[in-house]
């Protein structure tokens, strides 16, 4: 699981295009939440389980807002170059 988590982390560091970065970061968020759930089952510690479920919801919601923000920013021509470089 950790190995598959490293792939999007490397991609986030390596990629320049902001949307490719966003795709990799969304993959990180859902993988981290599942790893948290697996660890909470193995340790039988259910506070961690709740944290894992909260990460699923809030992590994806935050990324959704960020995507909308980037879209609005990208619509201004002046910032278009920044987004696409």
């Amino acid at each position, binding site marked *: 699981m950790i190995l*598959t988590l490293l792939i999007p982390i490397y991609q986030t560091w390596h990629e320049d295009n902001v949307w490719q970065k966003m795709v990799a970061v969304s993959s990180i968020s*859902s993988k981290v939440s*599942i790893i948290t*759930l697996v660890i909470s*089952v193995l340790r039988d510690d259910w506070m961690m*389980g709740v944290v894992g479920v909260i990460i699923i919801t809030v992590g994806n919601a935050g*990324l*959704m807002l960020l995507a909308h923000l980037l*879209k609005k920013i990208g619509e201004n021509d002046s910032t278009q170059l920044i987004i696409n470089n």
Partner: protein
Amino acid sequence: MINFLTYFCLISGLIFWLWGTPVLFQKRSILYKLHSLSVADTLGSILIVVGLSLKIPSELPLLILAIISLTIWNTMLGYVLAYSANNQEEKSDG
């Protein structure tokens, strides 16, 4: 039997993860990456959580909540990313 089912779900979920994530390395369009990632992350993660719920049935409510929120949120995030990214690429090409 339960043990076999548990490990079958966990391993098949992990296989989905391993199948869909390396696509990030390829020089592909965002929609292609989003498709394979949504299969890997959403479907693979749900299989893993189903395996976990078979392992410890006492915490079924929490794990069902995890499955529901995974299904809803991952799908919506994939749609929003596809919509936003696609809009940008059309504008920068146009």
